[in-house]
């Protein structure tokens, strides 16, 4: 209706949300529409990161460097100050922005540790190529999710 010229549109900003306010020309009727994103797809984002991790492990095994996959797996088992437990609680609660922040923080840490371990053994350029390849493979088929929530960039590679 706005496109057809029946309604006048204005952006109304507040501290917690943005909304579009529509006014009928010369009328006193006001329409309020809230355009929210819906629940945060935390579980889907977690699936992406888990695929990334398993692809990294698979690639290091195929690469043939002895013992690296074991070192990487050991890093996955670290407690990380309860971040993992909090994360799963948030997933059960339906996600939310905070859950996504925790998830990204967790995998940023893991990825940086992966990079340090692989760089030490095989050089930074090869390590970056390996991690980058894994991130791209995991992204396949879920590009819109990964790009929309900027999941790839925190992997660093």
């Amino acid at each position, binding site marked *: 209706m706005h496109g057809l010229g029946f309604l006048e549109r204005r952006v109304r900003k507040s501290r917690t949300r943005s909304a579009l306010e529509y006014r009928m020309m010369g009328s006193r009727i006001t329409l309020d529409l809230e355009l929210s994103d819906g629940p945060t797809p935390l579980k889907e984002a977690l699936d992406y990161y888990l695929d990334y991790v398993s692809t990294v492990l698979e690639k290091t095994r195929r690469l*043939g*460097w*002895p013992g690296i996959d074991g070192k990487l797996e050991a890093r996955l088992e670290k407690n990380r100050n309860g971040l993992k437990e909090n994360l799963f609680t948030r997933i059960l609660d339906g996600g939310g922005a905070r859950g996504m922040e925790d998830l990204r923080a967790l995998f940023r840490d893991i990825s940086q540790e992966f990079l340090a371990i692989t760089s030490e*053994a*095989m*050089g*930074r350029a090869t390590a970056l*190529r390996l991690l980058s390849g894994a991130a791209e493979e995991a992204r396949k088929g879920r590009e819109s999710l990964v790009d929309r929530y900027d999941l790839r960039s925190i992997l660093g590679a």
Partner: protein
Amino acid sequence: MSDRLPTGIEGFDLLVQGGFPARSVSLVAGPAGGGKSLFALHFCHAGARRYNEPSMYVVLEEAKESLQRVMQMFGMDFGDLEKADRFLLIDLGELRVSGSQGSPIGFRELQDFLASSLKTAHVRRLVIDSLSAIGLHYGSAAEYRERLFAFCRFLRGMDVTTLLIAESPDPHALTQFGVEQFLADSVVHLGLEEVKGELRRTLTVRKMRFTKHDTGKHPMHITSVGIEVAADEKVV
């Protein structure tokens, strides 16, 4: 490390005063199916098994599984050597397939990898299979030559003896870019010639610095135990 590194192929070692010069960079060239990878596997196997010299075989093109089949076929048991970190079969082709840009690996990247890995694994014998795969990274022969030159210099600075494998694109060209043989310390050519409808394998040591080597073309055979070179026979 001694001054000579035997390949374990007795006939060949007889031609070159016992083996490749230590810390040298050698080129093993020949057509597809000429036995280059098998030759290099002998070099690694002998080093790791008989001389306790950790060996690393870097695959850039051929599938790792294909090489493992070759090892099994010729009775080269690397299993215990791999467990003891005396033999490493590294598949960098895995990175080439799914790299950030899907691009082939170049000399700089390979050098970065080796600078870390050779020291970490105390590698004494190294095989790069093959230069042809790295060549895909470069747009011109001049750039390739420049990078290869720097790469060979880097290898000579490491405590490692290297075999670079290169595929001969046709019977008249030893290598793809025609520059590799000038930069390497040694050149071993594995030939595959058709004689009266049958393929005949040959081996010629074209060049080997610091060595009084045989220059004849010798018959080479691939048997159930791998490569055999007839050092006392020549192909005419």
